[in-house]
């Protein structure tokens, strides 16, 4: 079977039953942003903005290359953004502008007292 046939037959999440490496019993303490991302997933579900199943499909829709290169919570946050764009709740420009704002807040040039307020 060719490489592309495999990509078509199995979406990136659909790995049950495939051959794989031995189990390594790895774990890590969540980064603060990862924990916030998990809480965000729950809150989006509570408000029916993005259900757990929509989140899973959103990760699937990232495609094999992104799924293969992003970490677990990186996939989630990118999927949330895409789903909110698709639903018309946010636009890519909204997010880009806000991310710029957040980054500016952290840059060494912005003194703590000049934190933007409204």
């Amino acid at each position, binding site marked *: 079977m060719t490489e592309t046939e495999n990509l078509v037959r199995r979406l990136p*999440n659909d790995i049950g039953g495939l051959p794989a490496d031995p189990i*390594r019993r*790895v774990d*890590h303490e969540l980064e603060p942003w990862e924990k916030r991302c998990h809480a965000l997933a729950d809150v989006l579900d509570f*408000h029916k*903005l993005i259900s757990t199943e929509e989140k*899973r499909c959103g990760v699937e829709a990232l495609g094999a290359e992104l799924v293969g290169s992003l970490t677990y919570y990186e996939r989630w946050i990118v999927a949330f953004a895409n789903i909110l764009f698709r639903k018309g709740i946010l636009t890519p420009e909204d997010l880009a502008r*806000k991310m710029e704002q957040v980054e500016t807040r952290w840059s*060494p040039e912005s003194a703590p007292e000049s934190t933007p307020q409204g």
Partner: protein
Amino acid sequence: MTQPAHGHDDDHEHGPEHSLAEIGQAGGPGYYDIMETALRELLIERQLIGPDEIRRQIEVLDSRTPALGAKVVARAWVDPGFRTRLLANGRAACEELGISFYDDTALIVIENTDAVHNLIVCTLCSCYPRPVLGLPPDWYKLKPYRARAVSEPRAVLAEFGTIIPDDIEVRVHDSTAMVRYLVLPKRPAGTEGYSEEQLAALVTRDTMIGVVPVTLDTGRTTP
């Protein structure tokens, strides 16, 4: 763990000799961290979610640990009526013990017996009985466990040091967004005189995923 310094293109002006890890820590959050903050703030500004909801949900997540599942298991071992109710409706029985379900998921509790050993997995992603066990370990979310648990569960179990004799059936339960599973492990021999609390202290996360049995020497430290 430090994020790799994503896209810190402007760092060149501070000199090339800084270690990336140092810049990552001192220079603020990474790209995905910024994306998370930006999304959250946009949703709050537009009043789609409340300003305190994320913080409150983090507190809920932090309050869920395998100690809750262990309490459920120990109660089922000492109280046959509870055990029956637990196997009939996992969620209702957990709620009876004051364990709330913060999501819409059903919980099916499956019992290990002399004839059947059960194992839980989520082949598609990482569904897990979070209200009673907390968040899953990384290995549960990674490809080797998800891929192989359904096709060669005995080999997977052996990698956890668990050898299931051939005359015992192995059943693998694949979780979904709506239906989660919890293994009710076998009560170990030699615990006849144990109190409910002493029993609960023997029950670890991995015994309720089904990858190891409960033994007298691998329990958590008694609180």
